[in-house]
C-alpha cells in the first residue's frame, strides 16, 4: 500500500484518541468495545503495543453518551495534534465526530454505532462495526426467497427503527417482498394493541427492530397476544445483558446476529477470547468492533505512515482476518464487508444462551455502495 | 400583686436577621388583663411571637417559673398558652368545627364556655371558615384559644378591622375569659384597653419604656402622648434609649 513515508523515523509515539461511552446509557457497549480493542491491539502488535517500533499512545476518553462532550473532546485532541480518532457506539456521536474528522482532515474510525449514514459520509471516516443494512439483510436470509412474501417490520419510530424499516424495504423489497411497517412511538409503553395490529396484517415474517429498556414489555406483549404461534419472528440478538429480555418468547425467536462469544471459531476469535478472559471480561456483541478498530489503526500506522491521506489509502480496500473471519474495507465508501450470523437462544441453567444456527456470507449481506 | 404567670427578661427577637425586639423585660401577673402597648412597628407582635418561639429569639422567658425560651412553639402551647394571632389566621379551607377540633388539647374543658360565649359559631359549625365575615373569624380565632384550659392567653389586636358592634362583642368575650385566665393583650383601641386592662406595658423602639397600672397611664395625657402619640420620626427612640418611667424588674 502506498504510504506517504515520513522522515521523522519510528521514534515518536503515534497518538490515538479513543472516544466512547464510559458512563451514560451506552456505557456497557463502551466497555465491551474497549476490552475488544485491547485484545485487538495485543493481537495486531504481537503484544508489543508498538508498530514497527513506534509506540501507540492510546488515550481513552468518555463521551458520556453526549455529542457535545464528544465534540469538545475531539476538538481538544485534534488541537493537541492527534491524527487518529476512533470510537463510540452512539450514532449521533459518530456522525458528529465524522463531521469533525472531515473539517479537520483527521482519520476517524467509528465504533459500534450502526447507522448507515456513517458509511460513505466522507473520505476521512471508516467504521469498525457492522451497519444496519447488514442486520436487515441477515434477517432476509430467514425466509429463503423473499419474492411474494409479506414482511412486517415492527420497530420503534426513531432513527434506529426507521433505519431498519427503510433497510428492509430496500433489501427485501428489492428482492420482491411486500414490506409494511408497524412503527411505534419511542416513548410508548403499551404494546398490546400493536401486537394485535401485527396479527391483523397476517405477514409471513415479522422483523423486530427494537432497542432499549422497553423490549422486555414488547416481547411479553407479542407472546401474550400469540404472535409467535402464527408467524416466524426475527430480530437482532443484542448484548449479553439483553438475553433475559425476551422472557418466555426466547425460544420462539429467530435471531440475526452481529456477534456473540464463540460464534466465529476463528483463530483471531480464540486470541480475543483468551485475552478477554485473562482480563476478567467476556466476549460480547461489540467485542469484535474494538478488535477490528485496533487492527485498522495498526494497519493505518504501519502502512500509512504519518499522513492522514496515507492512512486512508492504507485502509481503503484492505482485506484482513479478524474475529468474524475475513473482512474487507470497501474502497468506495468504507463499508466494512463482513459475515453475519443466524442464532437462537437455548435454555441454559437459569438463563438463556445463544447458539449458532448458520453463518451468513459477507457478500450476501454486503450493502450497496453508498451514494451511488 | 399575685405570682407572675409570665416573666420575660432581656428578650431579643430577630426576623430575617433584623433585630425587632431589643432587650425587653416585663412580667404578666397571674390574674387580669395586661395590655402591651406601643405605636405601630415597635415590636408588640414580635414580642408575643418571641415569647411563643415563632421567631428567632434569645433571652429568658419563664411560664409560671419554668423556662420556655428554648422550647419549640408547640411545646410552649401545650404547657397552657393560648394564642390569638394578629390577623385571625383561621384555616379558611376547614370548617368552623374542624378549626375548633384542631385546637382542642386533651379533654378541652372550654367547649361549653365557648358554646355559651359564641352562639353564632355554634350555628355555623359546618361552614367553611374562609367564608365567614371578619368578625366571625375573630370569634373562631378566640374560640380556638378558649376551648382549652390555659394558664395564659396571648391576644394580638383582636379588634382590628372589626365593626364597632363586633368590637364590643369581642371585648365582652375577652372580659369573660379574663375572669378565668390571665391575658396579655395587644390592642390599639384605647376604649377597649380602658375597659379591660389592669396594667400596661409600653414598648418603644423595641424596648419597654413604661410599665404600671392601666388607669394611671391612660389618664396621664402627657405620657400617652409621648408613647402612643403623634410622632413623625419613628427612628428616634430606637437610637437614643429613653429613660424608663418605672424600671422593669
Amino acid at each position, binding site marked *: 500500500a502506498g504510504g506517504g513515508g515520513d522522515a521523522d523515523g519510528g521514534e515518536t509515539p503515534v497518538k490515538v484518541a479513543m472516544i466512547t461511552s464510559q458512563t451514560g446509557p451506552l456505557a456497557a457497549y463502551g466497555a465491551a468495545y474497549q476490552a475488544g480493542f485491547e485484545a485487538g491491539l495485543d493481537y495486531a502488535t504481537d503484544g508489543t503495543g508498538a508498530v514497527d517500533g513506534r509506540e501507540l499512545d492510546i488515550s481513552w476518553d468518555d463521551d458520556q453518551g453526549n455529542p457535545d462532550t464528544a465534540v469538545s473532546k475531539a476538538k*481538544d485532541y485534534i*488541537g493537541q495534534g492527534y491524527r487518529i480518532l476512533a470510537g463510540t457506539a452512539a450514532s*449521533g456521536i459518530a456522525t458528529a465526530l465524522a463531521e469533525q474528522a472531515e473539517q479537520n482532515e483527521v482519520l476517524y474510525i467509528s465504533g459500534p454505532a450502526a447507522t448507515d449514514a456513517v458509511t460513505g459520509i466522507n473520505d476521512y471516516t471508516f467504521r469498525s462495526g457492522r451497519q444496519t443494512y447488514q442486520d436487515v439483510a441477515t434477517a432476509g436470509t430467514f425466509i429463503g426467497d423473499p419474492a411474494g412474501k409479506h414482511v412486517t417490520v415492527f420497530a420503534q419510530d426513531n432513527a434506529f427503527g426507521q433505519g431498519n424499516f427503510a433497510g428492509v424495504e430496500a433489501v427485501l423489497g428489492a428482492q420482491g417482498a411486500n414490506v409494511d411497517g408497524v412503527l411505534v412511538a419511542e416513548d410508548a409503553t403499551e404494546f398490546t394493541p400493536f401486537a394485535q395490529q401485527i396479527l391483523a396484517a397476517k405477514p409471513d415474517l415479522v422483523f423486530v427492530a427494537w432497542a432499549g429498556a422497553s423490549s422486555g414489555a414488547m416481547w411479553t406483549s407479542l407472546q401474550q397476544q400469540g404472535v409467535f404461534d402464527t408467524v416466524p419472528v426475527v430480530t437482532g440478538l443484542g448484548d449479553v445483558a439483553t438475553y433475559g429480555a425476551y422472557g418466555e418468547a426466547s425460544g420462539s425467536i429467530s435471531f440475526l446476529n452481529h456477534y456473540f462469544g464463540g460464534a466465529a471459531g476463528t483463530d483471531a476469535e480464540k486470541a480475543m477470547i483468551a485475552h478477554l478472559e485473562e482480563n476478567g471480561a467476556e466476549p460480547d456483541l461489540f467485542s469484535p468492533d474494538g478488535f477490528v478498530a485496533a487492527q485498522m489503526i495498526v494497519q493505518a500506522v504501519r502502512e500509512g505512515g504519518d499522513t492522514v491521506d496515507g492512512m486512508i489509502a492504507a485502509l481503503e480496500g484492505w482485506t484482513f482476518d479478524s474475529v468474524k473471519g475475513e473482512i474487507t474495507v470497501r474502497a468506495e465508501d468504507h463499508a466494512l464487508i463482513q459475515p453475519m450470523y443466524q442464532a437462537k437462544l437455548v435454555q441454559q441453567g437459569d438463563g438463556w444462551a445463544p447458539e449458532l444456527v448458520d453463518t451468513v456470507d459477507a457478500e450476501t449481506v454486503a450493502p450497496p455502495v453508498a451514494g451511488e | 400583686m399575685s405570682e407572675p404567670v409570665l416573666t420575660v427578661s432581656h428578650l431579643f427577637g430577630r426576623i430575617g436577621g433584623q433585630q425587632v425586639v431589643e432587650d425587653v423585660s416585663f412580667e404578666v401577673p397571674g390574674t387580669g388583663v395586661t395590655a402591651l402597648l406601643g405605636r405601630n412597628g415597635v415590636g408588640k407582635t414580635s414580642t408575643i411571637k418571641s415569647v411563643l418561639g415563632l421567631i428567632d429569639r434569645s433571652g429568658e422567658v419563664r411560664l409560671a417559673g419554668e423556662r420556655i425560651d428554648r422550647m419549640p412553639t408547640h411545646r410552649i402551647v401545650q404547657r397552657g398558652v393560648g394564642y390569638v394571632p394578629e390577623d385571625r389566621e383561621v384555616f379558611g379551607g376547614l370548617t368552623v368545627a374542624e378549626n375548633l377540633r384542631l385546637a382542642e388539647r386533651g379533654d378541652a374543658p372550654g367547649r361549653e364556655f365557648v358554646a355559651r360565649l359564641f352562639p353564632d359559631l355554634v350555628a355555623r359549625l359546618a361552614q367553611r371558615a374562609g367564608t365567614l365575615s371578619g368578625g366571625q373569624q375573630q370569634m373562631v380565632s378566640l374560640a380556638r384559644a378558649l376551648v382549652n384550659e390555659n394558664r395564659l392567653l396571648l391576644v394580638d389586636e383582636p379588634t382590628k378591622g372589626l365593626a364597632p358592634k363586633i368590637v364590643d362583642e369581642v371585648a365582652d368575650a375577652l372580659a369573660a375569659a379574663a375572669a378565668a385566665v390571665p391575658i396579655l393583650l395587644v390592642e390599639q383601641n384605647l376604649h377597649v384597653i380602658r375597659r379591660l386592662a389592669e396594667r400596661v406595658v409600653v414598648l418603644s423602639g423595641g424596648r419597654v419604656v413604661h410599665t404600671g397600672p392601666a388607669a394611671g397611664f391612660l389618664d396621664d395625657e402627657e405620657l400617652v402622648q409621648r408613647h402612643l402619640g403623634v410622632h413623625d420620626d419613628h427612628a428616634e427612640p430606637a437610637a437614643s434609649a429613653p429613660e424608663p418611667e418605672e424600671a422593669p424588674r
Partner: protein
Amino acid sequence: MPAAGLLLVAALAVLPLLAIDIPGVLPGPTYTPGTLQLLAYAMLIAALALSYRMMFGLAGLLSFGHALFFAAGAYGLGMALDAFAPAAWPSEAIFLGAIAATLVFGLVLATTVGALALRVTGISFAMVTLAFAQAGSVLIRRNPGGATGGDEGLPLDTTHVPDALIGVMNTRNLYWVALGILVFVYLVVLWVERSRAGHVAEAARENETRVRVLGIRPYGVKLLVFIVASVLAAVAGMGYFLLQSGAAPRIATADFTLTILVIVVLGGVGYRWGAICGGIVYTLLDQRLTALAGSDAIAGLPAVLRVPLSEPLFILGTLFVLVVLFLPGGIAGIPARLRSGRAQHPLEKEGATDA
C-alpha cells in the same frame, strides 16, 4: 464596576493569545483548541443562563421550556443553512441570511409561546412552557421530513459557513464569537433590567394585582421579558450550533432546562454575574468531574465510596443540594454572605411571620 467589567472582557479576549495553564481546571494551556472549546462552550452556557435568569430572577417567570428557544436557535440555523444551501447567492449573504431567518424564527416562536403561556401564572405557566418545549422536543426527535436529524442530531452544513469558523485550528475565532455573544447578552439583559420595564417586571413579580391597579398592564412587560430572554437564548443556541458543528436533540429536553435552572441557582439567582459564574463553574465541573470519576484515585477506593464518586452526576447533584441548603445566595452570594454573616435569600418572599 463598568471599568472592572471592561477589564475582564479585555482579559478574556486576549486569553487565546496567552499560555495560561490551570491544571485540574482547564484541560491545557489557554491557547490550545481544547481549552478554548471548553471555555467557549462555558460562555455560551453562561449566556443562556443569563437569559434565563432575567426571566426567572427578574420577572419571576419560572419557565420549564427555555431549552426550546436555545434549540430553536441551534436547529433553526442548521435548517436554514440546509435550506439555503442550493441557492446561488454569495456564501456570506447566505450565512447572514440564515442567521437573520433564525432570529425571526426565534422571535415568532417566542412571541407565540409567550403570548399563550403568559395567560396563566405560577406552576401553570411552568407547565404550559414545559408542554410547548416537550412538543418541540418530541418533534425534533421525530425528525419530520428529515429536517432535524432525529436522534442522530443535525450536522452543520459547512458550505456557506465562513472558513474562519470551521476546523479545530479556528477554535480561537469561535471562542471570540462566544465571548461576543456573552457580552452582547449581558448588555441586553443589563439594559432590560435597568429599564423602566425591568422595574415593572420586578414589581409584577412581587404583586401583580397591585401593578394593575396602578394602571400598568403586567402582561405586556412580562411578554417583553419573555421574548427578549427567549431570543437571547436563540442567539446563544446559534453560537452553540457553530461551535459544536451540529445540534443534538438533548438540548431541547426538559432536562436541559432543568440544567439551566440548576446553573442559575448554583451561581446565585440574585446576581446577574451569578448566572455567568454558574454557567462556567457548571461546565468546568461537568468536564472535570468526569475526569475525576475515571481517575485512579477513585478506582482505588472501597466500593461504598467508589461507586458514588465515580458518577459525575452524583457529585454534581449532591453539590447542588448542598449549595441550595447552605449557600442560599449561590456562588455569587458568597461575598455578600461573608460581609453580612447571614443573608436572606433574594428570592425569598416576605417572611411567614407577616402573613
